[in-house]
């Protein structure tokens, strides 16, 4: 393979891992606080629809992004109310969000835009354009470093950079701030947090709302950055892959990024391999498309070892003994 081919595969890797990474970090906040979130997929889907719908109507990408994030945060708040205040089963709450999002986005799409559930194609002003980083053009002539900077690092849309910037930010928040300390504590032993005089409920809501924010960004990426409009079920199970990545990364930000890059790479490879023969045999497209998922199963089953999540995860906190 030549450099250009490698670079374009890696370039696709970055793009494809962005929504995974955003969703994975979203899940990290919630689960570290002791609220299992199987509803990442639903929140992303709802956000993708909200962002595309508003961007289509207003033609403004920023309003679209704002709408996507608002939808996702609202959904997260509903889920939080069920899981935290009403002490409902967190898995069921997440499943409910997923089903609601899948049904409601299609229904509203048909009602509002009458295009079989799709939103209208977005004009250039309605979606995030690829950014050219400073000096990208000037440096592109320099051997090796030039193409890496110009083709791989530069030339992505804003949300890609936001996603990768969110990794060090999350790390810092988690390990270097008061909020992070309390967040980690409330997922491990909420009673310790309660006896220390901190509100368990408030902390968990804060975490769930951050999850909503990040899911909103991930959803918007699908419809107004990578794509140019909403299509039915366009998140295609990425929320679940992100959840798998979170477990694989043992709920830590930097491993989460590496895992998402790995999954993104598998996805990119899959696209690259679609029209190639191996030893003269044409491999069915479906088999290659299934590759990332098969590898996910293998990785999760075989290599993850013992993944112990936050100890209080999944259990609503009640004060009485």
């Amino acid at each position, binding site marked *: 393979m030549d450099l250009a081919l490698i670079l374009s595969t890696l370039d696709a890797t970055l793009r494809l891992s962005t929504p995974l990474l955003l969703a994975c970090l979203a899940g990290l906040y919630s689960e570290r606080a002791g609220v299992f979130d199987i509803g990442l997929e639903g929140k992303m889907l709802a956000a993708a629809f909200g962002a595309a719908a508003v961007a289509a109507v207003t033609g403004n990408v920023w309003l679209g992004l704002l709408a996507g994030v608002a939808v996702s945060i609202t959904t997260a708040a509903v889920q939080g109310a069920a899981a935290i205040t009403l002490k409902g089963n967190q898995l069921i709450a997440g499943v409910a969000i997923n089903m609601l999002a899948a049904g409601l986005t299609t229904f509203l799409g048909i009602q509002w835009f009458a295009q079989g559930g799709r939103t209208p194609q977005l004009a250039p002003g309605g979606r995030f354009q690829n950014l050219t980083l400073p000096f990208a053009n000037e440096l592109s002539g320099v051997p090796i470093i030039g193409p890496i900077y110009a083709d791989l690092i530069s030339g992505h849309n804003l949300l890609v950079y936001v996603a990768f910037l969110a990794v060090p930010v999350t790390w810092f928040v988690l*390990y*270097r*701030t*008061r*909020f*992070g*300390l*309390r967040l*980690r*504590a409330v997922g*491990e*032993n909420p*009673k*310790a*947090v*309660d*006896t*220390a*005089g*901190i509100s368990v409920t408030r902390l968990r809501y804060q975490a769930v709302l951050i999850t909503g924010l990040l899911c909103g960004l991930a959803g918007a990426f699908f419809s107004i950055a990578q794509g140019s409009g909403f299509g039915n079920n366009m998140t295609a199970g990425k929320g679940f892959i992100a959840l798998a990545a979170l477990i694989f990364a043992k709920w830590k930000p930097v491993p989460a990024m590496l895992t998402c890059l790995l999954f993104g790479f598998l996805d990119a490879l899959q696209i690259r391999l679609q029209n190639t023969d191996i030893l003269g045999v044409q491999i069915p497209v479906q088999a290659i498309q299934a590759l990332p998922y098969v590898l996910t199963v293998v990785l999760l089953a075989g290599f993850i070892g013992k993944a112990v999540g936050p*100890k209080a995860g999944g259990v609503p906190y009640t*004060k009485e003994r």
Partner: protein
Amino acid sequence: MASDTHTGNSSAQRPSGAAAASEFAIELIKINKSFGPVHANKDIDLAIRRGSVHGIVGENGAGKSTLMSILYGFYTADSGEIRVDGTPHSITDSRHALALGIGMVHQHFMLVDNFSILENVVLGVEDNALLGPSLTRARKELVRLAKEYRLDVDPDAIIEDVSVGTQQRVEILKALYRGAEVLILDEPTGVLTPSEADDLFRVLNELRDQGKTIILITHKLREIMAITDYVSVMRQGEMVATLKTADTNPGEIAELMVGRRVLLRVEKGPATPGEVFLSVENLVVKDDLGITRVKDVSFTVRSGEIVGIAGVAGNGQSELLESVSGMRDQSSGTVRLKGHPLSLEGDDGAHRAREAGLAHVPEDRQRMGLVTAFEEWENAILGYQGDDAYGKGWILDIDAARAIARQRIEQFDIRPANERLKTANFSGGNQQKIVLAREMSSNPDVLIVGQPTRGVDIGAIEFIHNQIIKMRDAGKAILLVSVELDEIRSLADRILVMFDGHIVGEADPATATEGELGLMMAGISDKTAAAPAVAEGKTK
């Protein structure tokens, strides 16, 4: 050193200001608290003198922990007044209690297991949004506290890697770091080894000498006598007496706790040992880590006798017990019941042991003896659910099972007498009675009992001891393992002492002194002590 700056001579110095008028650090006046129909605290009055160690004793469920949870703001009293340094306060949450200088060390530690000691100390009292400065300050403060109270810990150690004793120190340090002047400890020695407990008492003395006020909740009379200045006795939600420890004795306190005179010494007739029911030959058992914990142990238990195994916890008693009862595979050796070898290997070893007539009351009732989320009647048949008495075939006869459970509740005086109540809602003593009732009712030839009265209150202890003796007098063979030497001495007809996986000696409880047993338990004894005659010869 550092103490010079803090206090001169113990309680003489008080915080200056209006509050200093009161000689009491804490006063509770007419406190009431109910949980549904249960009146947990009835008109409680209590005054805690500043700079003293004040013990609060009572049976399980007497309302001690509830009272302290009210003082700490975890619960709110239905009525009554709390005064701190003479000033009335209504303490609404634990943060408020902390602000008033009241700190609590809970029975179950409130620590985050995968945090460092430093992070646990800082949690909830961080100085600002960034963690760095708080951690630096806490590290300095820990060094100071370690010097002042001789409470050394490694600030960077992770909680799950340190001993239970150290975890408790962290809890104390947490309270001190938050500026606690009054420290409440709830059953602090329940989880500690004897040497850790001694260390705790040393720390508590140190704290008192530096002017702190200590409230110690316990049901162990020995601790009350050893460390407290005053003792308050609670019974069934009421405060029955507050005494100066120096003016009272364990007998009086025990009587106040139970409301009647307790036999601290078990009354039993002489044993009439018959044929050998249980024989263990050359048993070798490894623990989960593959370390040999029982090393070539042989002994017999006859019908109509209680054989007690004494020893410091962790010398192979638990593995011995688990192996003989079929819960842990043996590496080699033979266990015979009435002469027939028992096959105890595999996952259903315990089931086969039960079927053969060997019943087992495990050491840890909550983890191995009961499913605490089940209702009482479900636990009453657990392990025997296949018996025809609970329904033939594969359908459970629930009515029959509940009826039998009710009978046993009456027979064993299990309270509350409600077979539909979740087992977790019974006190420790009553949970133990549920297990005991189940195992004894199967009418086994051999009964193996581990720690029968751990965490059980005095009234229930007496009842449980009497039941065990009744079994013996009915001609059963009983193997008793307990870390309470008093219990072994008063119940057993024959004592075997275990040390480092070996049975290092045998003693007659009637003649052996505590000192002799203690030496054997510490592994300081001649090999010749293995012969009973020699062991008896050594006494006096």
